[in-house]
């Protein structure tokens, strides 16, 4: 501990913050020359310079633009051979100021092609053991013959266009370069083998049931336009399988032809409902549109099971779907489907919450799926903007959780007898909330998932936590036996094991998802938790919620970047959060604070040692010093037992005089003279800067909590000293008493050191 040399000037300012500190440099090694390494410096180096496309406020700039891709598609499903045939017309609009020499189209299915390079980037070597199916898949069977078979690429007059396929990307040459403001229309015909998503994994494919019938959840099934924007140019980063997507907005008109006994739904409005529903199904659907409390079953389990017992229709039926302002299209189809729906009020509009599932999903799905969809729409709409589409569908796909506009696939299946544990139930409700929630991020707030996984997964995980807690409150039956919904992600303490982990296996959130270890914690858990901490502990709900809504609404139906998010959160709240983004998003730093020491001081009229030393050094005679209020540390040479607990005005007559001269009797009576003075030294072995939340417990059992903003660390990143003057004696101090800051080691957070319950000894008894 360095000697504190001080001169106490003000008579009344009995506060340690008034101490002028003069650090002794002698024992410390000379500091290195350096750049600005202060953790509160602005993110100028990390951020790109704002421009006409993206404003410094975080809002879209005056010249912001985005491309548009409109699709018309005819799709046919060959159920018997699980094969899809497609023909599409893409109208691409160049809203950019750039002339485009060619177009890039995504062929995601090629990840499953025989010559796919996806297996070649796995550097895991030979696994020492494998289950039989895995072994067979890797070493015994022919690779699955997936991937698009591109049959034709034509211009609007039917002339073939030149194209080149580079793995999962296709470059299409136009007859002439596409000028700003111009459109280009072209056709693609293709087909592909649909994979079994249960066996081979994947976010699209079919499940085959023991009766031989299949359920299809189909996505990435058509050649899709890449994004072209002001940040990346063409976002034509290859699809390796784990990373997700970047897609422009547009409209879709899709006709899907499937066996006539199938139940089908997908992105967009069903425009020929009367042709594809039976009159009974229509009647039930109309009832669902007027029912707000319980889902109405449109195709029943009995009906689905009856169809499943038959050989399957060979006659075909076409379902027509039309969608505007969507970035993608997904659909599902099976003769084994049950469907239910109910209406949800969102703002002044009705949205249909829909669930589609095979009988295997029951009795779980009929109870909770549609209600979870409804809760998601309500909670997310409150946190962001009113859900703009007319429906949200939750489809049951074994083992999958994956999102598309208005439709998503979700897991959660009871066992063969229909039994399920709480874990299965909460897993199912949570995944539904998560995937339906993806309608907001990234389907509408359309970030680039391939580059910045956290922008949709992290923001979504955060709102998911809010919605899960709402679910517990609004549907208490869903959490029977518990006080609150058991969210796995969100609470600060839940991210500690990850943040405390081996740094070799941790990457900053600002990393491409494909390139990180512990993907789930990196792209979902940590950013989700960071936002929860930002909301609850750093900004407060009012400021955070306003700013988060501002971001969501500014970038609704647009393409934001990370900086647009960071900037908007500051722009709308008047809070400088650069330190928070830097620590939580740009580094792998963790929070660890602890109480290093607590010193008690009392007031004395007698000159203390510090003043004597100070005067001696400067050759100032003692009698030249006026009467001062001296602080004496308990246990120091100057300390006497009787100093304890005295009011300063009792001890120092000049202070009393000052009070008499300057304050009225009334004012003096209202004064609360502190008697106990504490200096609390907080050390910070962790690199992250976070607010210090400190709880004082007084001798009478009452407590008081103070929050020191993170800026308290601006001058010293390792150690700070807090002061506390009180009328009552303090008997206990705890840092972060409610575990809000993801402090990785709380064993040093208490004074006096808590006599830890020795669990090891307890276990031995």
């Amino acid at each position, binding site marked *: 501990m360095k000697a504190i040399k001080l001169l106490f000037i003000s008579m009344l300012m009995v506060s340690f913050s008034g101490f002028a500190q003069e650090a002794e440099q002698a024992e410390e090694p000379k500091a290195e020359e350096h750049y600005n390494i202060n953790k509160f410096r602005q993110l100028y180096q990390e951020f790109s310079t704002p421009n006409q496309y993206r404003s410094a406020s975080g809002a879209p700039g005056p010249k912001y633009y985005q491309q548009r891709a409109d699709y018309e598609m005819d799709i046919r499903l060959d159920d018997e051979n699980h094969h899809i045939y497609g023909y599409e017309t893409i109208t691409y609009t160049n809203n950019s100021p750039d002339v485009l020499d060619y177009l890039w189209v995504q062929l995601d299915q090629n990840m*499953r092609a025989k010559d796919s390079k*996806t*297996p070649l*980037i*796995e550097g*895991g*070597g030979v*696994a*020492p*053991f*494998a*289950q*039989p*199916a*895995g*072994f067979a*898949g*890797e070493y015994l069977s022919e690779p699955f013959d997936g991937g698009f078979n591109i049959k034709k690429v034509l211009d609007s007059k039917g002339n073939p266009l030149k194209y080149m396929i580079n793995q999962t990307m296709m470059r299409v040459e136009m007859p002439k370069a596409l000028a700003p403001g111009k459109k280009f229309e072209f056709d693609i015909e293709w087909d592909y083998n649909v994979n079994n998503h*249960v066996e*081979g*994994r*994947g*976010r699209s494919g079919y499940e085959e049931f023991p009766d031989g019938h299949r359920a299809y959840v189909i996505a990435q099934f058509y050649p899709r336009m890449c994004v072209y924007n002001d940040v990346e140019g063409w976002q034509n980063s290859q699809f390796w*399988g*784990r*990373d*997700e997507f970047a897609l422009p907005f547009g409209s879709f008109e899709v006709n899907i032809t499937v066996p006539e006994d199938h139940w089908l739904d997908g992105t967009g409005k069903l425009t020929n409902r009367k042709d594809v529903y039976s009159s009974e199904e229509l009647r039930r659907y109309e009832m669902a549109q007027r029912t707000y409390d319980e889902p109405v079953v449109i195709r029943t389990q009995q009906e689905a099971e009856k169809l499943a017992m038959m050989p399957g229709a060979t006659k075909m039926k076409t379902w027509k779907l039309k969608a505007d302002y969507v970035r993608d299209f997904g659909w599902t189809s099976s003769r084994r489907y049950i469907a239910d729906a109910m209406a949800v009020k969102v703002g002044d509009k009705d949205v249909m919450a829909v669930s589609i599932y095979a009988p295997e999903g029951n009795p779980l799905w009929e109870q909770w799926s549609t209600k979870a969809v409804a809760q998601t729409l309500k909670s997310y709409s409150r946190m962001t903007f009113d859900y703009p589409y007319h429906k949200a569908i939750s489809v049951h796909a*074994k*083992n*999958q*959780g*994956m999102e598309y506009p208005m439709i998503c696939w979700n*897991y959660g*299946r009871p066992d063969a007898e229909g039994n399920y544990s709480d*874990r299965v139930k*909460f*897993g199912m409700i*949570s*995944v539904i909330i*998560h995937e339906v929630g993806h309608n907001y991020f990234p389907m509408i707030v359309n970030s680039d998932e391939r580059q910045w996984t956290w922008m949709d997964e992290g923001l979504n995980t955060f709102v998911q936590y809010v919605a899960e807690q709402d679910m517990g409150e609004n549907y208490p039956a869903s959490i029977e036996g518990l006080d609150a919904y*058991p*969210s*796995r*992600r969100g609470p600060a303490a*839940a991210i500690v*094991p990850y943040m*405390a*982990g*081996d740094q070799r*296996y941790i990457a900053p959130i600002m990393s491409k998802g494909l390139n990180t270890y*512990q*993907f*789930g*914690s990196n792209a*979902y*858990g940590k950013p989700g938790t960071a936002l929860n901490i930002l909301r609850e502990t750093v900004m407060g709900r009012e400021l955070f919620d306003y700013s988060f809504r501002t971001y969501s609404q500014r970038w609704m139906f647009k393409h934001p970047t990370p900086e647009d998010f960071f900037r908007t959160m500051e722009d709308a709240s008047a809070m400088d959060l650069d330190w928070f983004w830097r620590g939580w998003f740009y580094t792998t730093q963790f929070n660890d604070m602890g109480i290093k020491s607590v010193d008690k001081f009392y007031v004395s009229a007698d000159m203390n040692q510090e003043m004597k030393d100070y005067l001696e050094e400067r050759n100032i005679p003692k009698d030249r010093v006026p009467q001062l209020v001296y602080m004496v540390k308990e246990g120091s040479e100057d300390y006497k037992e009787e100093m304890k607990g005295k009011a300063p005005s009792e001890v120092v007559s000049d202070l009393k005089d000052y009070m008499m001269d300057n304050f009225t009797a009334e004012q003096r009576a209202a004064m609360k003279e502190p008697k106990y003075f504490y200096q609390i030294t907080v050390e910070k072995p962790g690199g992250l800067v976070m607010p210090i939340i400190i709880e004082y417990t007084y001798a009478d059992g009452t407590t008081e909590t103070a929050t020191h903003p993170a800026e308290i660390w601006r001058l010293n990143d390792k150690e700070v000293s807090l002061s506390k003057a009180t009328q009552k004696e303090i008997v206990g101090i705890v840092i972060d008493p409610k575990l809000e800051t993801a402090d990785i080691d709380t064993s040093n957070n208490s004074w006096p050191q808590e006599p830890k319950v020795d*669990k*090891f000894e307890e*276990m*031995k008894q």
Partner: protein
Amino acid sequence: MKYIFLFLLMPFLSQASYGNHDADELRFRESVNITAHKYYLSVSNLKYNAKVGALQMTSRFFIDDLEDVLSARADENIILTEDGNLTKHKQLIGDYFTSRLRVKVDGDLIPIDYLGSEIDNDQLVLYIEIPVDREPLEIEMRFTALMELFEDQKNMVHLKIRGERKTLLMVAKKKIDSVKF
């Protein structure tokens, strides 16, 4: 061999049964376990307690993973989510970890002492002692718990010995790790 087939019937387990060759499967695992844990990871903390004369270690394992492994081994459905069951299955848990955790302290293999465990949310916290008579200079571990079922299982042990923090990491392809202080 019996339980291998049992695994195949369990939907949860089948997701782990494929090699890393299909990157979609990786993504799938992340996505499927969105609300559960995404990764197969146990975290342990180990310190020397001079008073007791032992290395004291707490290990955190996801209960669902552990239930799956123990169920397979015991050939019955093991549920650990109630405190009573922890006592009931103490022997089973202890035997399992004794076989899956081998610790060499300064070159000597020392049998572990499983004291007991408690439930913390979705994790089981195990209390383990390794009796030694002085603070070690070198620790070697072979920690293979859950690896028979989850190829990606990582067992991470943070050590604090002689005031130094170090970490051991054991994975299927590198089951043994050691560190000197």
